[in-house]
């Protein structure tokens, strides 16, 4: 038996390097198989439990959002409450997705999400919840400056959903590109900035990058627009974004 003292230190969370991304994708794929096989009502009940968990840790979320984003307490409370409302909302959509997205053929599998630099809780939650409601799993690259709210979101999800349904990675050099190369859908609608390298990586792997909507915020997207693009395509190549 190896000496315990010689073991490498356990890392509290995935950092976002290439190996971490691959590990996260494997865990998410396993979780997606289990989670996607659940009936819609079971997924809805689990998401409602996530909403209850978020609400029970409201003060902690408010504190982290205030610290991370420098918001007033009223703004942070509004952001956390809106996130809880979103979780409740998507809990209710879980058994009704065929009505929301009539072309849906099944669970979306593993979806990658890039979180924006600001808006560290609400934006990731709004990106993640539709995927979870549809039976998919998410690998989320958290905000590089304010990762803590996204990590807490991951913990809340883990209380009610199978492990791996939401894996939160730290944004490190190349993590977004590595994630883009490993998924068929990378949701980058919530973050601005230069996505050329990400688009190249996705295109090379046959994936699709969901771009920020032109001229408006991703927060303005309706529910159908939030969940529809995660629909699994038979052949993602024709819709893949070309490298700039």
């Amino acid at each position: 038996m190896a000496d315990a003292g010689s073991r490498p230190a356990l890392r509290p969370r995935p950092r976002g390097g290439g190996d971490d991304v691959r590990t996260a994708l494997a865990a998410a794929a396993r979780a997606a198989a289990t989670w996607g096989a659940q009936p819609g009502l079971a997924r809805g009940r689990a998401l409602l439990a996530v909403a209850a968990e978020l609400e029970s840790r409201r003060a902690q979320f408010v504190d982290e959002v205030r610290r991370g984003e420098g918001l007033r307490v009223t703004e942070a409370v509004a952001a956390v409450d809106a996130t809880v409302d979103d979780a409740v909302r998507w809990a209710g959509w879980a058994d009704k997705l065929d009505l929301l997205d009539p072309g849906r053929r099944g669970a979306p599998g593993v979806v990658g999400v890039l979180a924006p630099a600001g808006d560290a809780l609400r934006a990731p939650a709004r990106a993640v919840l539709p995927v979870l409601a549809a039976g998919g799993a998410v690998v989320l690259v958290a905000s590089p400056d304010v990762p803590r709210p996204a990590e807490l979101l991951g913990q809340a999800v883990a209380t009610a959903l199978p492990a791996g349904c939401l894996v939160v990675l730290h944004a490190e050099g190349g993590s977004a590109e590595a994630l883009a190369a490993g998924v068929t859908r990378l949701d980058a609608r919530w973050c601005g900035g230069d996505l050329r390298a990400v688009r190249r990586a996705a295109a090379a792997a046959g994936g699709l990058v969901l771009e920020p909507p032109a001229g408006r915020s991703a927060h303005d997207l309706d529910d159908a627009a939030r969940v529809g693009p995660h629909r699994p395509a038979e052949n993602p190549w024709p819709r893949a974004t070309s490298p700039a």
Partner: protein
Amino acid sequence: MTSPLPDPPDRGAPRVRRAPRRRLEDAGAAGLPALCRAPGTGDGAPAGAGATHDLLDPTTGAVLTRVAGTTPAEAAAALARAAASARGGWAWLSGEDRARHLYALAATLEAAVRPLAVTAALVAGRPVREGLDVDGPALLDAAFSAAGWADKLAAVGVRPRAGGVVVLVATWRTPAADLLAAATTALALGCGVLLRARPAAAPAALHVARACAEAGLPADLVGVAPGADAEADAALWDAGDLAGVVAGGDAEALRELALDLADRGTPLVAQPDPAGVDVVLAGADLGAACAAVLRAVADGAWRRPGGSRVLVAEALAAEVLARLTEGAAGLRVGHPLDRATDVGPCPSPELARAAASARTRPAAVPADLPEGGWWALPAVLVTGPRTAPPPPGPLVGVRTLRGEAEVPALLAGAGEVTVWGGRNGPGPHRTGDRAGPAAGLSLLRRLGG
């Protein structure tokens, strides 16, 4: 008021002996009072001038409990209280807040599953096993699913009908899941709810109203007005706060109700008693098809109050008939509180009489069943062009098809149709299903603005 007891359905046939009955579920779980009355009407005093109805035990024909009918004034007052509660404490809530309350209701209902199952067993002869294992999960699913509409009205293009009251007419054949789906949908729209429970549905309606109160919904938001008085009905249909009516029943009763509501233009969601038809064509999985038909036979009038029929392709008819006959003979008729029971007594003496008269040969009622009950034994009856389909109950009529072209004409009036086999694959292919999110959205749109 006492319904006449039926003629013994199996007169002339010996009563057969079989293994002793198992321990019965505790009837006390139903919490049936000696007199069921609407909350807030005449507690401790004679209940208004409304008629009092005797509820009979379908296993013995003896009086189980009594139901105090609601007078027209009491019914109108209950509706006004629900409207005031909706305006004062419900309609102004955001959709998100209403959704939270309704999810809390869905969670609270878990505690009501057993009382509702035992109540259905005592009042309507529904086997308690089915009530606990099938109806219970179905009602929880229905309430949860309907709760989810509250914060999505704009997303599906439905305007709230804030402050009105939706009246739900409940009968013994209204499944708890349908009742909860309709009530929760109305609440999701911002309405109050009044359960106009016919006498046999009154105990279940009181359980539902109690669960709503325990879930923290505003007082009087969900009211109960038991009874069958036509004048009380008319008082409800004339109420200014009436936003819609959801009612089941036979086609003629629903047509009369539609006429009553037509002058004011009140929306009516009519849910006609479904006649269930299974169509078995070449390529069907006969095992699955026959198992489903036998479940329908066991559910009897409870699930298919319009009766149950099978249309089977000629080449398969002999095998299907043999399987169904053997399966029906294996269904255990027994006390509805016995978990081993597949088929309980009929919900009314009239149905028991009709089922007995539809049989061509007398059959023996097991000797361990209480005498005086409204028992009907499961049976598979062969029907043809000149024979009427069997009445509702643990009966199924099997008719042979000469060709698929016959099917459309034979499906006239059918509520739920399940096709097994045929050109679309083995199936089952279903139409007319009242459950599921699509049916929920349809109900939402019909009640919504």
